């Protein structure tokens, strides 16, 4: 009976550990506390407005993926529903994320424009069944700036709809735009790790069709 009780407690603990979010949006008060072991702080800026990107706040869905030997990403580590969404505020997002290991990396699996006035979102990119991802490559604790990202979509000469990002990794003006909202952030210790586009090579299997005779 005692073994059964211990097993149930262990199961609950494991479930709770599994449900713990690996990414979360941060407030300035969170920055006064030391960063948890195995986590880092990430900063992403999105280009406010240009020909390719509308002047909207963005939402990012962050999820853990396995990294393959060929450099692509595959198979969500945890169910797709257990990822986390972070939002930009004044076009900047500050969040806590899990450090990358040799085989598991937190990635931005999708991004959307958030249309406040219309109360909806429109997709920028998504990798539910494979597709582009933005890996958050950081293997040691610290504050990482992934740069100012511009999303681009264009049609290649063979008619392929291509997606890419361009990144401005200059930190000039970052402190000025953040210091009011995040005075506790130590701007001198920010590590610059320009974001790069990766590819999730997993593909969804077709669902089974049941025919009743």
């Amino acid at each position, binding site marked *: 009976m005692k073994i059964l009780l211990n097993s149930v407690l262990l199961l609950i603990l494991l479930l709770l550990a599994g449900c713990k979010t690996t990414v979360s949006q941060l407030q300035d008060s969170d920055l006064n506390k030391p960063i948890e072991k195995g986590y880092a702080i990430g900063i992403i800026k999105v280009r406010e407005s240009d020909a390719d990107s509308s002047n909207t706040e963005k939402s990012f869905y962050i999820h853990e993926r396995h990294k393959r030997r060929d450099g692509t990403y595959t198979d969500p580590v945890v169910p797709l529903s257990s990822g986390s969404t972070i939002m930009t505020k004044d076009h900047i997002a500050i969040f806590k994320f899990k450090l990358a290991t040799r085989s598991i990396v937190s990635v931005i699996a999708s991004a959307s424009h958030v249309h406040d006035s219309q109360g909806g979102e429109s997709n920028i990119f998504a990798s539910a*069944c494979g597709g582009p991802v933005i890996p958050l490559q950081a293997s040691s604790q610290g504050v990482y700036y992934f740069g100012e990202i511009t999303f681009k979509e264009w049609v290649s000469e063979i008619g*392929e*709809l291509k997606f890419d990002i361009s990144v401005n990794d200059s930190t000039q003006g970052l402190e000025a735009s953040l210091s009011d909202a995040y005075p506790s952030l130590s701007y001198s210790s920010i590590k610059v790790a320009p974001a790069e586009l990766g*590819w999730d090579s997993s593909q969804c299997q077709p669902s089974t069709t049941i025919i009743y005779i």
Partner: protein
Amino acid sequence: MKLLVKVLTTALMALAVTSCANLSTYKNYKNKKLSDDLVAKIRPSTKNSVFTPGIASVRNTSRDASDKKTKSVGGAMAGYPVKMNLLPGRYVITFYCFTGNTYAFPSAEVVVEEGSTYYSRCFNAPEGKVGVEVYEAE
């Protein structure tokens, strides 16, 4: 008796795997045994693509082709092969690009040479369309 069952099961599995492997390459030349340097190989590529390219049909449009009819290759029930060997010439190939329950049938006209390997790759095109490219392996 247990050993016999084990051996039989292994043999059956090996046979099944070999059969599947044979089915996966469609050879567009009947009753001929040809070496690799006499045929052109079409092989699938999923590089930076969310689709797997299957092959749905092929039509030989070469000037000297004796049969210019479209030949269906596989189908919804039997599945579609992803590899095909062809004799050199000009062909119109219709691909079955699929991911999950989404699929499309884009076509490509290709000229293939003996001894060469070509990759087929499906891609997203504007307005929700799907395209396919066939390119020679480097």
